[in-house]
């Protein structure tokens, strides 16, 4: 099933190898019927899709390959009772519980030690595997490219479709290579690298593409950093993103309870070691980004492309891609052109989400927080990405570092990434956040969100104003 016009043994990319394996048939105009190996559900849409299937008298084709969790609208306060604070939230939770039970789907419910944000738990449980196709009712499903799965976020109707047929109709993607050259400086996180890439490529720049991230920098990254990298690819409009698997990937997945075991694991490894893009494989587009000069990054506006180096100044809208949008963004953010982004006072700080809610992220923030205190006027929260992340963090004492510093230590969930969980930050409050979207009203009505890495968020929480973690000593009162 070679791509038309190419011979079967021509060099292929990781994306093409995975794509071609999963094509059931071609449907014309580039559309293909694609087999989906794993399906993941959360309560914001999962219950709706399952209820619609029941109403139509249809069944879930392969319940064994479907996993459900509660993350989007659940309360993340410590000692949560399961009471849901979001308007209409309990209905979504109950619908997923009822639907999962009716269709024989395993649900990681609130009391389950495997519960967590869907994109955090599927790699840690060994559900997402290299070379597999995955679909989930969530736009950040592209995260799973960090463990070399080809994963798509889909709407509720498509979720119904994939549950009933184990397939999706998808347009054959164009392929884009983003190669990171050079070594990044000290204290530069995967989040900084990807924010810089989004600024360069633009929020709509990879529309229609699946992206492979490569280069020495990506090879050196931990699996969790790669998950962060791929997570943000939807913010430059890529339909998905992926990183080649290597020994780090295999070590990360080996302990996952749902990963293959024994002989099956060995056979899988033989296959996965050949999955990476061939040396001469051609991409439809290739971009090289020099990482040597990248510093910590922080956003100033209402799109992830509105990114600045932390020593930068708020731009003149006339110099932006869409000046009218930039002007509106400045009004919304309460900023004037030319203002240095460092030194901007903040009201709140958030560590968590599918972007930066994994153990490495919490460690990075804790390293900054150790022996320090959050500025008195700042409300600070840490929400681990999964119950497992929380447990492991507590076993190495990170919770103590966070709480000693004045952070709230929460149960896992999406939480204030998008004013779910029944909470929001205060109107016009300025929030430094490890999440993925700085959209208007995303974290609460009129809330001003600045996206950054866990290190930058921790340092900023301590200083009370935006600051480079590397400069924190100087900024301390």
């Amino acid at each position: 099933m070679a791509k038309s016009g190419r011979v079967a043994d021509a060099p292929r990319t990781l994306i093409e190898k995975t794509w071609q394996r999963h094509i059931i048939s071609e449907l014309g105009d580039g559309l293909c019927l694609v087999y989906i190996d794993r399906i993941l559900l959360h309560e914001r849409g999962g219950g709706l899709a399952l209820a619609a299937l029941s109403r139509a008298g249809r069944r879930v084709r392969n319940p064994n390959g479907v996993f459900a969790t509660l993350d989007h609208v659940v309360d993340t306060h410590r000692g949560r009772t399961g009471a849901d604070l979001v308007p209409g939230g309990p209905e979504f939770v109950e619908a997923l519980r009822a639907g999962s039970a009716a269709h024989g789907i395993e649900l990681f419910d609130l009391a389950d030690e495997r519960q967590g944000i869907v994109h955090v738990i599927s790699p840690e449980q060994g559900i997402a595997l290299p070379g597999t196709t995955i679909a989930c009712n969530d736009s950040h499903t592209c995260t799973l490219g960090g463990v070399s799965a080809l994963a798509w976020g889909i709407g509720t109707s498509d979720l119904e479709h994939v549950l009933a047929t184990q397939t999706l109709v998808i347009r054959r993607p164009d392929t884009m290579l983003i190669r990171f050259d050079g070594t990044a400086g000290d204290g530069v996180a995967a989040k900084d690298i990807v924010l810089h890439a989004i600024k360069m490529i633009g929020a709509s720049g990879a529309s229609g593409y699946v992206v492979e991230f490569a280069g020495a920098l990506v090879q050196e990254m931990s699996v969790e950093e790669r998950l962060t990298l791929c997570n943000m690819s939807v913010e430059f409009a890529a339909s998905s993103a992926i990183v080649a698997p290597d020994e780090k990937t295999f070590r990360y997945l080996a302990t996952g309870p749902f990963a293959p075991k024994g002989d099956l694991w060995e056979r899988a490894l033989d296959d996965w070691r050949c999955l990476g893009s061939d040396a001469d494989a051609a991409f439809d587009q290739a971009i090289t980004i020099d990482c040597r000069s990248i510093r910590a990054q922080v956003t100033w506006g209402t799109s992830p492309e509105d990114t600045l180096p932390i020593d930068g100044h708020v731009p003149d809208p006339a110099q932006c891609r869409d000046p009218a949008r930039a002007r509106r963004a400045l009004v919304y953010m309460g900023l004037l052109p030319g203002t240095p982004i460092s030194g901007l006072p903040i009201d709140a700080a958030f560590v968590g989400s599918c972007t930066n809610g994994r153990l490495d992220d919490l460690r990075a923030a804790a390293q900054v927080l150790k022996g320090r205190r959050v500025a008195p006027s700042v409300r600070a929260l840490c929400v681990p990405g999964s119950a497992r992340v929380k447990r492991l963090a507590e076993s190495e004492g990170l919770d103590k570092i966070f709480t000693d510093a004045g952070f709230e230590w929460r149960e896992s969930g999406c939480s204030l990434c998008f004013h779910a969980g029944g909470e929001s930050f205060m109107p016009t409050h300025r929030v430094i956040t490890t999440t993925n979207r700085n959209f208007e009203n995303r974290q609460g009505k009129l809330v001003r969100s600045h996206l950054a890495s866990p290190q930058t968020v921790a340092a900023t929480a301590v200083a009370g104003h935006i600051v480079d973690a590397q400069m924190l000593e100087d900024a301390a009162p």
Partner: protein
Amino acid sequence: MTANPIARVAGVAAPLLRDNIDTDLIIPSRAIRMNKQGLGASLFAAWRYNAQPRRENPEFVLNRKPYRHATILVGGSNFGCGSFREAAVWALRDFGIRGIIAESFGNIFYTNCITNGLIPVTLERSIVHRLAVEAEGADRQQSICIDLESCTVRLFDGVVVPFNLPSLYRTMLLRGLDMIDVVLERDAEIVAYERRSCTERPWSAASRLTKRRLVR
């Protein structure tokens, strides 16, 4: 899901020419309910209403005549980016929008349009921008038309421009088909694929997954 068949959309086009209009803007997270109906009232809520007391913002395009009765939106690039929420499309439908013209669309939003009987039309930037300027000056009598039979848009000046839509999507919209029915007709192909891939890559076969093993 099955949507009503749709062949053409004619009517008032509302200009909303801004790049990267995300689905959080189209419908706020908190307005989403289990019910697909009735979401039109919350469409673009943050722009459409002034807060406390909640009143219509008279400057927002959908609160102005003739756009209050718009059936078509003209948006910038990457329209519908962001969250997967299909409620964005349900809200647009509920308001009365049946076609959206933009330079490009968020990937998931585009598919959500197809499954819900909205026509997503991709046109080049210069045409979209001209259309938005003309829509701003248009009165109630002036309309444009998206024709799915011919995959064309008739602009205000009568000029007809073609747009691309995969023929399967076009057929689905024209006939109001449910893609699940279409695909289940190919069940034998899916079964054959599963048999083959289970032999070739048993480690990824769902049938091999043993559930209810707890994480360490």
